[in-house]
C-alpha cells in the first residue's frame, strides 16, 4: 500500500522517473482540454435548442456563476475561469476514481500544494487588479505596521490549510479503501469507495468556494474603505 501516488513509479530513464501523480495529472489535463474543446465547438445561440452536452456544461457554469455572484457581487464573473478550472480539475480527479488503476493526483501533497500556491498567487493578483499595487499592499500595514508579520502568517497558514485539507481528505479515501481491502474484501470496500467519491466531490466544491471567499475578501476590503 502506498501513502501517496508519488511513490508509484511508472517509467524511469536514468535518474529521471515519471510517477503516477505526474502521469495522472497529464492524462486528466489532456482529457479536460479535449472534452472542453469538443463540447464548446458547436455552441447554440440563446434562442436555438441546446444539445444534451451543452445543457450539462451549462448546469455547471451557471451553478458556479451564481455561487461566485453571491460572494463577490456582479463583478465576480472575472474569477469564473480560474475558480471553474480548480473545481473541474479537482472534481474530475476524484470522480475518475471509478476507473480501475486510476490514482487521484490530488492524493499527493505536491499537487494540492501547487493548487493552494495558485490560490495564494491569485488572491494578491486580483487584489492588485482591483485596487492598484499600493492600495492592495497597504492593508498589510493596517491597523499598524506591527501587524505585518501576523498578516503574513495568516495568509500562509490558510493556504497551507487549503493544501493539507484537500490532501488529507482524498488520501484518506484511498487509504481506507486499501485497508478494508486487506481486512474485509469483496463487499465492504464498495460503500467506502462511494463515500470517497462523495467526499471528493464535496472537497472540490469546498476548495473552489474557499478560493472564492479569499479572493472576495481581498477585493472587497478595498471597496469598503
Amino acid at each position: 500500500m502506498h501513502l501517496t501516488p508519488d511513490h508509484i513509479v511508472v517509467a524511469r530513464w536514468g535518474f529521471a522517473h515519471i510517477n503516477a501523480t505526474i502521469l495522472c495529472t497529464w492524462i486528466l489535463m489532456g482529457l479536460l482540454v479535449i472534452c472542453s474543446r469538443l463540447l464548446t465547438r458547436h455552441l447554440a445561440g440563446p434562442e436555438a435548442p441546446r444539445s444534451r452536452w451543452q445543457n450539462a456544461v451549462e448546469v455547471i457554469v451557471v451553478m458556479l456563476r451564481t455561487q461566485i455572484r453571491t460572494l463577490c457581487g456582479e463583478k465576480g464573473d472575472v474569477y469564473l475561469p480560474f475558480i471553474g478550472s480548480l473545481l473541474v480539475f479537482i472534481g474530475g480527479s476524484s470522480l475518475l476514481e471509478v476507473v480501475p488503476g486510476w490514482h487521484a493526483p490530488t492524493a499527493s501533497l505536491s499537487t494540492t500544494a501547487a493548487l493552494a500556491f495558485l490560490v495564494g498567487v491569485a488572491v494578491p493578483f486580483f487584489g492588485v487588479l482591483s485596487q492598484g499595487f499600493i492600495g492592495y499592499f497597504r492593508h498589510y500595514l493596517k491597523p499598524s505596521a506591527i501587524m505585518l508579520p501576523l498578516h503574513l502568517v495568516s495568509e500562509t497558514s490558510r493556504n497551507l490549510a487549503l493544501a493539507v485539507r484537500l490532501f488529507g481528505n482524498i488520501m484518506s479515501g484511498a487509504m481506507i479503501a486499501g485497508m478494508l481491502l486487506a481486512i474485509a474484501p469483496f463487499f465492504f470496500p464498495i460503500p467506502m469507495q462511494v463515500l470517497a467519491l462523495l467526499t471528493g466531490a464535496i472537497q472540490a466544491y469546498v476548495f473552489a468556494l474557499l478560493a472564492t471567499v479569499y479572493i472576495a475578501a481581498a477585493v472587497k476590503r478595498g471597496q469598503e474603505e
Partner: protein
Amino acid sequence: MDKTTLIGMASIVMAALCMAIGAIGPALGEGKAIAQALSAIAQQPDASSTISLTLLIGLAMLESIAIYCFVIAIVLIFANPFWNFMVR
C-alpha cells in the same frame, strides 16, 4: 526496552490518542454549527441558500482540524521520521 521498541510504541499510542482526542473537538463544534444552522433555516426558510453557503465554509474550516490530526496520525504510523532514522 531498546530505543526502537520505545519509538514504535510511543508512535502507535500517540497516533491513536491524536486521532481520538482530535476528533472530539471538531465533532462537537460541527454538531453545534449544524444544529444552529438548521434552526435558523427552520425560522427563515428564505435565507436558506445564504445560511447553507456560510455553513459549508464554516464546516470546511472545522473539518480541517480533524484532518490535521488524521494526517499527523498517518505520518506517525506510515512515514515516521524517527522510526526511519532508527531503523536505518
